[in-house]
Protein backbone atom coordinates (compact mmCIF):
# COMPACT_ATOMS: atom_id res chain seq x y z
CA UNK A 1 0.00 0.00 0.00
CA UNK A 2 1.35 3.34 -1.01
CA UNK A 3 -0.05 5.58 1.69
CA UNK A 4 -1.95 5.28 4.89
CA UNK A 5 -4.11 8.14 6.05
CA UNK A 6 -5.42 8.25 9.52
CA UNK A 7 -8.39 10.49 10.09
CA UNK A 8 -8.48 11.68 13.65
CA UNK A 9 -11.02 13.57 15.65
CA UNK A 10 -10.91 17.36 15.93
CA UNK A 11 -8.01 18.47 18.09
CA UNK A 12 -6.18 15.14 17.85
CA UNK A 13 -4.51 15.57 14.48
CA UNK A 14 -0.76 16.24 14.53
CA UNK A 15 0.23 19.88 14.62
CA UNK A 16 2.99 19.73 12.02
CA UNK A 17 2.02 18.78 8.49
CA UNK A 18 4.92 19.88 6.34
CA UNK A 19 5.10 16.60 4.44
CA UNK A 20 1.48 16.94 3.55
CA UNK A 21 1.95 20.52 2.39
CA UNK A 22 4.64 19.26 0.04
CA UNK A 23 2.38 16.49 -1.22
CA UNK A 24 -0.13 19.13 -2.26
CA UNK A 25 2.34 21.34 -4.14
CA UNK A 26 0.60 20.70 -7.47
CA UNK A 27 -2.53 22.27 -6.10
CA UNK A 28 -0.48 25.30 -5.10
CA UNK A 29 0.89 25.69 -8.64
CA UNK A 30 -2.58 25.31 -10.11
CA UNK A 31 -4.10 27.90 -7.80
CA UNK A 32 -1.39 30.42 -8.64
CA UNK A 33 -1.72 29.69 -12.33
CA UNK A 34 -5.49 30.04 -12.21
CA UNK A 35 -5.36 33.45 -10.50
CA UNK A 36 -2.84 34.84 -12.95
CA UNK A 37 -4.53 33.33 -15.96
CA UNK A 38 -8.00 34.55 -15.07
CA UNK A 39 -6.86 38.01 -14.12
CA UNK A 40 -4.76 38.69 -17.15
CA UNK A 41 -6.99 37.00 -19.69
CA UNK A 42 -10.19 38.99 -19.37
CA UNK A 43 -8.86 42.45 -18.69
CA UNK A 44 -8.35 44.68 -21.66
CA UNK A 45 -4.90 45.94 -20.83
CA UNK A 46 -3.91 42.88 -18.84
CA UNK A 47 -0.59 43.21 -17.11
CA UNK A 48 -0.77 46.98 -17.33
CA UNK A 49 -3.36 47.14 -14.54
CA UNK A 50 -0.83 46.27 -11.87
CA UNK A 51 1.57 48.83 -13.31
CA UNK A 52 -1.03 51.53 -13.76
CA UNK A 53 -1.98 51.40 -10.10
CA UNK A 54 1.63 51.87 -9.01
CA UNK A 55 2.23 54.68 -11.50
CA UNK A 56 -0.93 56.55 -10.50
CA UNK A 57 -0.12 56.29 -6.79
CA UNK A 58 3.39 57.53 -7.47
CA UNK A 59 2.06 60.47 -9.44
CA UNK A 60 -0.54 61.45 -6.84
CA UNK A 61 1.83 61.05 -3.90
CA UNK A 62 4.52 63.01 -5.73
CA UNK A 63 2.15 65.92 -6.30
CA UNK A 64 0.68 65.94 -2.79
CA UNK A 65 3.55 64.89 -0.54
CA UNK A 66 6.48 65.76 -2.77
CA UNK A 67 5.42 69.13 -4.17
CA UNK A 68 2.69 70.44 -1.85
CA UNK A 69 3.67 69.07 1.57
CA UNK A 70 7.36 68.81 0.58
CA UNK A 71 8.27 65.87 2.80
CA UNK A 72 12.08 65.51 3.21
CA UNK A 73 13.49 62.60 1.20
CA UNK A 74 17.23 62.35 1.97
CA UNK A 75 17.89 64.42 -1.11
CA UNK A 76 16.31 61.98 -3.56
CA UNK A 77 13.71 62.88 -6.18
CA UNK A 78 10.32 62.22 -4.55
CA UNK A 79 9.12 59.72 -7.21
CA UNK A 80 12.13 57.47 -6.51
CA UNK A 81 11.72 57.96 -2.79
CA UNK A 82 8.03 57.11 -2.71
CA UNK A 83 8.23 54.30 -5.25
CA UNK A 84 10.95 52.47 -3.31
CA UNK A 85 8.51 52.33 -0.40
CA UNK A 86 5.33 51.97 -2.39
CA UNK A 87 6.51 48.92 -4.32
CA UNK A 88 6.96 47.06 -1.04
CA UNK A 89 3.77 48.46 0.44
CA UNK A 90 1.52 47.55 -2.51
CA UNK A 91 2.80 44.00 -2.20
CA UNK A 92 2.17 43.93 1.55
CA UNK A 93 -1.33 45.39 1.21
CA UNK A 94 -2.37 43.04 -1.58
CA UNK A 95 -0.91 39.91 0.00
CA UNK A 96 -2.23 40.75 3.49
CA UNK A 97 -5.79 41.46 2.32
CA UNK A 98 -6.05 38.56 -0.07
CA UNK A 99 -4.43 36.05 2.26
CA UNK A 100 -6.57 37.06 5.22
CA UNK A 101 -9.72 36.68 3.13
CA UNK A 102 -8.52 33.52 1.38
CA UNK A 103 -10.53 30.98 3.40
CA UNK A 104 -13.71 33.00 3.06
CA UNK A 105 -13.18 33.68 -0.64
CA UNK A 106 -12.57 30.01 -1.36
CA UNK A 107 -15.42 28.60 0.68
CA UNK A 108 -16.62 26.63 -2.34
CA UNK A 109 -13.30 24.76 -2.48
CA UNK A 110 -13.08 24.19 1.26
CA UNK A 111 -16.57 22.73 1.39
CA UNK A 112 -15.95 20.32 -1.45
CA UNK A 113 -12.41 19.00 -1.50
CA UNK A 114 -9.68 18.23 0.96
CA UNK A 115 -6.32 19.96 0.92
CA UNK A 116 -4.23 21.63 3.61
CA UNK A 117 -6.13 24.92 3.80
CA UNK A 118 -2.93 26.88 4.30
CA UNK A 119 -2.13 26.36 0.62
CA UNK A 120 -4.69 29.04 -0.22
CA UNK A 121 -2.64 31.56 1.76
CA UNK A 122 0.60 30.51 0.10
CA UNK A 123 -1.02 30.81 -3.32
CA UNK A 124 -2.30 34.37 -2.90
CA UNK A 125 1.03 35.51 -1.46
CA UNK A 126 2.79 33.97 -4.48
CA UNK A 127 0.43 35.81 -6.84
CA UNK A 128 1.14 39.06 -5.00
CA UNK A 129 4.87 38.40 -5.45
CA UNK A 130 4.37 38.12 -9.21
CA UNK A 131 2.58 41.49 -9.19
CA UNK A 132 5.38 42.86 -7.07
CA UNK A 133 7.90 41.97 -9.78
CA UNK A 134 5.89 44.04 -12.25
CA UNK A 135 5.72 47.02 -9.93
CA UNK A 136 9.39 46.62 -9.14
CA UNK A 137 10.12 47.07 -12.84
CA UNK A 138 8.52 50.53 -12.61
CA UNK A 139 10.95 51.37 -9.82
CA UNK A 140 13.85 50.16 -11.97
CA UNK A 141 12.63 52.32 -14.84
CA UNK A 142 12.45 55.34 -12.54
CA UNK A 143 15.99 54.67 -11.28
CA UNK A 144 17.28 54.56 -14.83
CA UNK A 145 15.36 57.74 -15.70
CA UNK A 146 16.78 59.65 -12.73
CA UNK A 147 20.20 57.99 -12.96
CA UNK A 148 20.11 56.53 -9.43
CA UNK A 149 22.37 53.50 -8.87
CA UNK A 150 21.50 50.75 -6.34
CA UNK A 151 23.68 50.61 -3.22
CA UNK A 152 25.16 47.69 -1.28
CA UNK A 153 21.80 47.52 0.52
CA UNK A 154 20.39 45.72 -2.52
CA UNK A 155 22.07 42.57 -1.21
CA UNK A 156 19.82 42.71 1.85
CA UNK A 157 16.64 43.36 -0.05
CA UNK A 158 15.70 39.73 -0.76
CA UNK A 159 16.10 38.56 2.85
CA UNK A 160 13.99 41.55 3.85
CA UNK A 161 11.25 40.58 1.42
CA UNK A 162 11.31 37.20 3.13
CA UNK A 163 10.73 39.02 6.41
CA UNK A 164 7.76 40.79 4.82
CA UNK A 165 6.37 37.48 3.56
CA UNK A 166 6.72 35.93 7.02
CA UNK A 167 4.96 38.88 8.61
CA UNK A 168 2.07 38.63 6.18
CA UNK A 169 1.94 34.86 6.58
CA UNK A 170 1.81 35.06 10.36
CA UNK A 171 -0.88 37.72 10.45
CA UNK A 172 -3.01 36.13 7.76
CA UNK A 173 -2.85 32.70 9.42
CA UNK A 174 -4.57 34.32 12.38
CA UNK A 175 -6.96 36.54 10.47
CA UNK A 176 -8.00 34.03 7.80
CA UNK A 177 -8.90 31.48 10.47
CA UNK A 178 -10.80 34.12 12.45
CA UNK A 179 -12.58 35.28 9.30
CA UNK A 180 -14.33 31.92 8.92
CA UNK A 181 -16.57 32.17 12.00
CA UNK A 182 -16.36 35.94 12.43
CA UNK A 183 -17.33 37.81 9.31
CA UNK A 184 -16.45 41.10 11.02
CA UNK A 185 -12.87 40.49 9.99
CA UNK A 186 -13.96 41.32 6.46
CA UNK A 187 -14.99 44.80 7.55
CA UNK A 188 -11.84 45.28 9.56
CA UNK A 189 -9.36 44.39 6.83
CA UNK A 190 -9.45 47.56 4.67
CA UNK A 191 -9.39 49.68 7.79
CA UNK A 192 -6.42 47.78 9.26
CA UNK A 193 -4.57 48.05 5.96
CA UNK A 194 -4.96 51.83 5.82
CA UNK A 195 -3.79 52.30 9.39
CA UNK A 196 -0.89 49.94 8.81
CA UNK A 197 0.14 52.04 5.81
CA UNK A 198 0.28 55.22 7.89
CA UNK A 199 2.31 53.34 10.52
CA UNK A 200 4.82 52.39 7.82
CA UNK A 201 7.24 54.83 6.18
CA UNK A 202 5.59 54.74 2.76
CA UNK A 203 4.99 58.43 2.07
CA UNK A 204 7.41 59.80 4.66
CA UNK A 205 10.96 58.74 5.71
CA UNK A 206 11.28 56.72 8.93
CA UNK A 207 13.90 59.28 10.10
CA UNK A 208 11.04 61.74 10.77
CA UNK A 209 10.06 59.69 13.80
CA UNK A 210 11.41 60.78 17.24
CA UNK A 211 14.00 58.20 18.44
CA UNK A 212 12.10 57.47 21.67
CA UNK A 213 9.32 55.80 19.65
CA UNK A 214 11.71 53.64 17.65
CA UNK A 215 11.06 50.49 19.66
CA UNK A 216 7.33 50.69 19.02
CA UNK A 217 8.10 51.35 15.39
CA UNK A 218 10.25 48.22 15.15
CA UNK A 219 7.25 46.12 16.18
CA UNK A 220 6.00 46.75 12.64
CA UNK A 221 8.38 44.63 10.53
CA UNK A 222 7.38 46.45 7.34
CA UNK A 223 9.32 49.51 8.59
CA UNK A 224 12.71 47.86 8.22
CA UNK A 225 11.68 46.23 4.96
CA UNK A 226 10.83 49.61 3.43
CA UNK A 227 13.93 51.18 4.96
CA UNK A 228 16.06 48.50 3.33
CA UNK A 229 14.36 49.15 0.01
CA UNK A 230 15.11 52.90 0.38
CA UNK A 231 18.67 52.10 1.38
CA UNK A 232 19.09 49.83 -1.64
CA UNK A 233 17.30 51.81 -4.33
CA UNK A 234 16.95 55.41 -3.11
CA UNK A 235 20.24 56.01 -1.27
CA UNK A 236 18.54 56.23 2.13
CA UNK A 237 20.20 55.36 5.44
CA UNK A 238 20.36 51.61 6.32
CA UNK A 239 17.95 50.31 8.98
CA UNK A 240 19.33 49.76 12.47
CA UNK A 241 20.39 46.22 13.33
CA UNK A 242 18.45 46.00 16.59
CA UNK A 243 15.28 47.11 14.84
CA UNK A 244 15.73 44.35 12.28
CA UNK A 245 16.19 41.85 15.10
CA UNK A 246 13.02 43.01 16.90
CA UNK A 247 11.08 42.85 13.61
CA UNK A 248 12.29 39.31 12.91
CA UNK A 249 11.17 38.32 16.40
CA UNK A 250 7.73 39.80 15.78
CA UNK A 251 7.39 38.00 12.43
CA UNK A 252 8.48 34.65 13.87
CA UNK A 253 6.10 35.10 16.80
CA UNK A 254 3.12 35.63 14.51
CA UNK A 255 4.15 32.76 12.22
CA UNK A 256 4.48 30.24 15.05
CA UNK A 257 1.34 31.26 16.94
CA UNK A 258 -0.60 31.75 13.69
CA UNK A 259 0.39 28.30 12.47
CA UNK A 260 -0.71 26.75 15.73
CA UNK A 261 -4.02 28.60 15.76
CA UNK A 262 -4.73 27.84 12.11
CA UNK A 263 -4.00 24.13 12.51
CA UNK A 264 -6.36 23.96 15.45
CA UNK A 265 -9.15 25.64 13.51
CA UNK A 266 -8.85 24.28 10.00
CA UNK A 267 -10.47 20.89 10.68
CA UNK A 268 -13.90 22.50 10.95
CA UNK A 269 -13.60 25.26 8.33
CA UNK A 270 -15.80 23.19 6.01
CA UNK A 271 -18.60 23.10 8.60
CA UNK A 272 -18.63 26.81 9.21
CA UNK A 273 -17.56 28.61 6.09
Amino acid at each position, binding site marked *: *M*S*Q*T*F*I*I*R*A*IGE*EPLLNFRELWAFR*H*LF*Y*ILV*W*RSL*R*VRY*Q*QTVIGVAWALLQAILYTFVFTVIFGLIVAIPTNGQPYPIFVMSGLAVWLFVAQAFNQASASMFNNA*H*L*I*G*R*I*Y*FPRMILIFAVIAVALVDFLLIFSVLVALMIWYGVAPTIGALFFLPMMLLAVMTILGLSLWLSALYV*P*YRDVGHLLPFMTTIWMFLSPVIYPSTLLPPKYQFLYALNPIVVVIDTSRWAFASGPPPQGWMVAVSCGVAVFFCVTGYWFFRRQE*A*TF*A*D*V*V
Partner: protein
Amino acid sequence: MSKIALSVSRLGKWYAVNDLRYRKSLSELVIQMFTAPFRGKEGGRAISQAPNSIWALRDITFEVEAGKVLGVIGRNGSGKSTLLRILARITAPTEGVAELHGRVGALLEVGTGFHPDLSGRENILMNGTMIGMTPKEVRRREDEIIEFSECGDFIDTPVRHYSSGMFMRLAFAVAAHLEAEIMLVDEVLAVGDEAFQQKCKAKIRETALNGRTVLFTSHDMESIKNICQSCMVLDHGKAAHVGDVDEGIRVYRRICGNPQ
Protein backbone atom coordinates in the same frame (compact mmCIF):
# COMPACT_ATOMS: atom_id res chain seq x y z
CA MET B 1 -6.47 -11.08 -0.23
CA SER B 2 -8.46 -10.15 2.82
CA LYS B 3 -6.44 -7.09 3.55
CA ILE B 4 -8.33 -4.29 5.21
CA ALA B 5 -8.29 -1.15 3.08
CA LEU B 6 -10.58 1.00 5.14
CA SER B 7 -11.37 0.72 8.79
CA VAL B 8 -13.58 3.05 10.72
CA SER B 9 -13.92 2.95 14.45
CA ARG B 10 -16.55 4.69 16.59
CA LEU B 11 -16.76 7.62 14.23
CA GLY B 12 -19.01 10.49 15.28
CA LYS B 13 -19.76 13.99 14.10
CA TRP B 14 -21.49 16.53 16.26
CA TYR B 15 -22.98 19.81 15.13
CA ALA B 16 -24.04 22.67 17.33
CA VAL B 17 -27.19 23.68 15.55
CA ASN B 18 -28.21 26.93 17.12
CA ASP B 19 -24.75 28.39 17.54
CA LEU B 20 -24.53 31.50 15.39
CA ARG B 21 -21.03 30.62 14.34
CA TYR B 22 -22.33 27.40 12.86
CA ARG B 23 -25.21 29.02 11.05
CA LYS B 24 -23.78 28.10 7.68
CA SER B 25 -23.18 24.52 8.66
CA LEU B 26 -26.91 23.97 8.68
CA SER B 27 -26.85 21.94 5.57
CA GLU B 28 -30.09 20.43 4.43
CA LEU B 29 -28.98 17.26 6.08
CA VAL B 30 -28.82 18.65 9.57
CA ILE B 31 -32.02 20.63 9.27
CA GLN B 32 -33.85 17.53 8.17
CA MET B 33 -32.40 15.52 10.97
CA PHE B 34 -33.28 18.17 13.50
CA THR B 35 -36.85 18.64 12.42
CA ALA B 36 -37.49 14.95 11.87
CA PRO B 37 -39.16 13.37 14.92
CA PHE B 38 -36.69 11.22 16.79
CA ARG B 39 -37.99 7.75 16.81
CA GLY B 40 -36.61 4.92 18.92
CA LYS B 41 -35.80 5.06 22.60
CA GLU B 42 -32.05 5.06 22.23
CA GLY B 43 -31.59 7.45 19.32
CA GLY B 44 -33.35 10.35 20.96
CA ARG B 45 -31.30 10.21 24.11
CA ALA B 46 -27.92 9.86 22.46
CA ILE B 47 -28.52 12.71 20.06
CA SER B 48 -29.87 15.25 22.50
CA GLN B 49 -26.74 15.31 24.59
CA ALA B 50 -26.80 19.10 24.65
CA PRO B 51 -29.62 21.44 23.73
CA ASN B 52 -29.54 22.68 20.14
CA SER B 53 -26.92 20.20 19.10
CA ILE B 54 -27.01 17.09 17.05
CA TRP B 55 -24.99 14.00 16.33
CA ALA B 56 -25.13 13.81 12.56
CA LEU B 57 -23.20 10.58 12.87
CA ARG B 58 -22.53 8.49 15.96
CA ASP B 59 -20.67 5.36 16.84
CA ILE B 60 -20.03 4.15 13.30
CA THR B 61 -17.70 1.17 13.10
CA PHE B 62 -16.99 -0.93 10.02
CA GLU B 63 -14.24 -2.32 7.84
CA VAL B 64 -13.89 -2.78 4.12
CA GLU B 65 -11.51 -5.31 2.63
CA ALA B 66 -9.32 -4.26 -0.25
CA GLY B 67 -11.16 -4.65 -3.54
CA LYS B 68 -14.60 -4.88 -1.98
CA VAL B 69 -17.57 -2.56 -2.45
CA LEU B 70 -19.55 -1.41 0.54
CA GLY B 71 -22.92 0.14 -0.15
CA VAL B 72 -24.11 2.85 2.19
CA ILE B 73 -27.84 3.45 2.17
CA GLY B 74 -30.22 5.48 4.24
CA ARG B 75 -32.86 8.16 3.92
CA ASN B 76 -32.02 11.77 3.19
CA GLY B 77 -30.35 13.20 6.25
CA SER B 78 -29.38 9.87 7.73
CA GLY B 79 -25.69 10.79 7.77
CA LYS B 80 -24.48 9.31 4.48
CA SER B 81 -23.02 12.56 3.20
CA THR B 82 -21.48 13.36 6.55
CA LEU B 83 -19.75 9.98 6.55
CA LEU B 84 -18.42 10.45 3.03
CA ARG B 85 -17.31 14.01 3.78
CA ILE B 86 -15.39 12.82 6.82
CA LEU B 87 -13.70 10.02 4.88
CA ALA B 88 -12.87 12.46 2.08
CA ARG B 89 -11.31 14.61 4.83
CA ILE B 90 -13.39 17.64 3.95
CA THR B 91 -14.40 17.90 7.57
CA ALA B 92 -13.01 16.28 10.70
CA PRO B 93 -14.96 13.92 12.95
CA THR B 94 -15.79 14.90 16.52
CA GLU B 95 -14.75 11.50 17.79
CA GLY B 96 -13.39 8.24 16.52
CA VAL B 97 -10.71 7.21 14.05
CA ALA B 98 -10.64 6.11 10.44
CA GLU B 99 -7.71 4.45 8.72
CA LEU B 100 -7.44 4.48 4.96
CA HIS B 101 -4.74 2.34 3.36
CA GLY B 102 -4.16 3.75 -0.10
CA ARG B 103 -4.91 6.86 -2.06
CA VAL B 104 -8.43 8.14 -1.59
CA GLY B 105 -10.51 9.57 -4.40
CA ALA B 106 -13.81 11.24 -3.73
CA LEU B 107 -16.54 11.40 -6.34
CA LEU B 108 -18.97 13.37 -4.23
CA GLU B 109 -19.39 16.58 -6.17
CA VAL B 110 -18.39 17.56 -9.65
CA GLY B 111 -16.99 20.73 -11.12
CA THR B 112 -15.07 21.89 -8.06
CA GLY B 113 -13.14 25.01 -8.89
CA PHE B 114 -14.43 25.24 -12.45
CA HIS B 115 -13.86 28.76 -13.66
CA PRO B 116 -16.16 30.20 -16.34
CA ASP B 117 -13.40 32.24 -17.97
CA LEU B 118 -11.10 29.28 -18.50
CA SER B 119 -11.40 26.91 -21.43
CA GLY B 120 -12.66 23.36 -21.09
CA ARG B 121 -9.12 22.05 -21.42
CA GLU B 122 -7.81 24.39 -18.73
CA ASN B 123 -10.66 23.46 -16.43
CA ILE B 124 -9.85 19.78 -16.87
CA LEU B 125 -6.31 20.44 -15.71
CA MET B 126 -7.44 22.56 -12.80
CA ASN B 127 -10.32 20.45 -11.60
CA GLY B 128 -8.32 17.25 -12.05
CA THR B 129 -5.53 18.59 -9.89
CA MET B 130 -7.99 19.79 -7.28
CA ILE B 131 -9.60 16.40 -6.88
CA GLY B 132 -6.23 14.77 -6.42
CA MET B 133 -4.57 13.92 -9.72
CA THR B 134 -1.13 15.19 -10.55
CA PRO B 135 -0.97 17.52 -13.57
CA LYS B 136 0.94 14.77 -15.36
CA GLU B 137 -1.86 12.26 -14.79
CA VAL B 138 -4.43 14.77 -16.00
CA ARG B 139 -2.54 15.34 -19.24
CA ARG B 140 -2.17 11.62 -19.78
CA ARG B 141 -5.90 11.07 -19.48
CA GLU B 142 -6.96 14.31 -21.13
CA ASP B 143 -8.05 12.77 -24.44
CA GLU B 144 -10.11 10.13 -22.66
CA ILE B 145 -11.79 12.78 -20.53
CA ILE B 146 -12.60 14.97 -23.51
CA GLU B 147 -14.01 12.02 -25.40
CA PHE B 148 -16.16 10.93 -22.48
CA SER B 149 -17.51 14.46 -22.01
CA GLU B 150 -18.62 14.74 -25.66
CA CYS B 151 -17.40 18.37 -25.58
CA GLY B 152 -14.54 17.86 -28.01
CA ASP B 153 -15.53 20.61 -30.45
CA PHE B 154 -15.63 23.27 -27.76
CA ILE B 155 -12.81 22.12 -25.56
CA ASP B 156 -10.76 25.29 -26.12
CA THR B 157 -13.75 27.60 -25.61
CA PRO B 158 -14.26 29.26 -22.22
CA VAL B 159 -16.79 27.17 -20.32
CA ARG B 160 -19.03 30.17 -19.72
CA HIS B 161 -20.20 29.64 -23.31
CA TYR B 162 -21.14 26.02 -22.54
CA SER B 163 -24.69 24.84 -22.15
CA SER B 164 -25.45 23.56 -18.67
CA GLY B 165 -25.51 20.04 -20.04
CA MET B 166 -22.05 20.37 -21.54
CA PHE B 167 -20.77 21.89 -18.34
CA MET B 168 -22.08 18.99 -16.25
CA ARG B 169 -20.76 16.41 -18.70
CA LEU B 170 -17.29 17.87 -18.65
CA ALA B 171 -17.34 18.15 -14.87
CA PHE B 172 -18.43 14.56 -14.46
CA ALA B 173 -15.91 13.34 -17.02
CA VAL B 174 -12.98 14.72 -15.04
CA ALA B 175 -14.21 13.23 -11.78
CA ALA B 176 -14.90 9.87 -13.37
CA HIS B 177 -11.32 9.55 -14.53
CA LEU B 178 -9.84 9.93 -11.09
CA GLU B 179 -7.95 6.77 -10.20
CA ALA B 180 -7.45 5.93 -6.60
CA GLU B 181 -7.21 2.76 -4.57
CA ILE B 182 -10.13 3.75 -2.38
CA MET B 183 -13.04 5.49 -4.03
CA LEU B 184 -15.87 7.29 -2.31
CA VAL B 185 -18.72 7.46 -4.77
CA ASP B 186 -22.13 9.08 -4.64
CA GLU B 187 -24.32 7.88 -7.45
CA VAL B 188 -26.48 11.01 -7.48
CA LEU B 189 -23.59 12.38 -9.49
CA ALA B 190 -24.90 10.77 -12.63
CA VAL B 191 -25.89 13.83 -14.61
CA GLY B 192 -27.28 15.06 -17.90
CA ASP B 193 -29.90 13.56 -20.17
CA GLU B 194 -30.92 9.96 -19.86
CA ALA B 195 -28.31 8.63 -22.25
CA PHE B 196 -25.49 10.41 -20.48
CA GLN B 197 -26.83 9.37 -17.08
CA GLN B 198 -26.64 5.76 -18.20
CA LYS B 199 -23.08 6.38 -19.34
CA CYS B 200 -22.24 7.91 -15.95
CA LYS B 201 -23.75 5.00 -14.07
CA ALA B 202 -21.88 2.54 -16.26
CA LYS B 203 -18.67 4.42 -15.59
CA ILE B 204 -19.31 4.40 -11.86
CA ARG B 205 -19.97 0.67 -11.97
CA GLU B 206 -16.82 0.14 -13.98
CA THR B 207 -14.92 1.98 -11.27
CA ALA B 208 -16.54 -0.17 -8.63
CA LEU B 209 -15.91 -3.44 -10.44
CA ASN B 210 -12.31 -2.67 -11.25
CA GLY B 211 -10.90 -4.23 -8.11
CA ARG B 212 -10.90 -0.99 -6.18
CA THR B 213 -12.13 -0.54 -2.68
CA VAL B 214 -15.31 1.47 -2.93
CA LEU B 215 -17.74 3.12 -0.58
CA PHE B 216 -20.82 3.54 -2.66
CA THR B 217 -24.00 5.42 -1.84
CA SER B 218 -27.12 5.38 -3.93
CA HIS B 219 -30.87 5.53 -3.61
CA ASP B 220 -31.15 2.96 -6.37
CA MET B 221 -31.42 -0.46 -4.70
CA GLU B 222 -30.76 -2.19 -8.02
CA SER B 223 -27.34 -0.55 -8.19
CA ILE B 224 -26.64 -1.55 -4.61
CA LYS B 225 -27.63 -5.15 -5.28
CA ASN B 226 -25.58 -5.29 -8.45
CA ILE B 227 -22.26 -4.03 -7.27
CA CYS B 228 -21.97 -4.19 -3.49
CA GLN B 229 -20.64 -7.15 -1.53
CA SER B 230 -21.84 -5.75 1.74
CA CYS B 231 -23.98 -2.92 2.90
CA MET B 232 -24.49 -0.52 5.75
CA VAL B 233 -27.81 1.14 6.55
CA LEU B 234 -27.72 4.49 8.29
CA ASP B 235 -30.65 5.83 10.23
CA HIS B 236 -30.48 9.11 12.13
CA GLY B 237 -26.72 8.99 12.18
CA LYS B 238 -26.48 5.46 13.50
CA ALA B 239 -25.71 2.20 11.78
CA ALA B 240 -28.97 0.24 11.68
CA HIS B 241 -27.36 -2.64 9.85
CA VAL B 242 -23.88 -3.67 8.70
CA GLY B 243 -23.32 -6.76 6.60
CA ASP B 244 -25.47 -8.70 4.15
CA VAL B 245 -26.82 -6.68 1.21
CA ASP B 246 -30.30 -8.23 0.90
CA GLU B 247 -30.91 -7.95 4.62
CA GLY B 248 -29.66 -4.34 4.47
CA ILE B 249 -32.14 -3.47 1.76
CA ARG B 250 -34.95 -4.99 3.85
CA VAL B 251 -33.87 -2.91 6.84
CA TYR B 252 -33.74 0.20 4.67
CA ARG B 253 -37.23 -0.44 3.28
CA ARG B 254 -38.58 -0.95 6.78
CA ILE B 255 -37.06 2.40 7.85
CA CYS B 256 -38.59 4.06 4.83
CA GLY B 257 -41.92 2.62 5.86
CA ASN B 258 -42.63 0.41 2.88
CA PRO B 259 -41.73 -3.19 3.70
CA GLN B 260 -41.87 -5.30 0.57
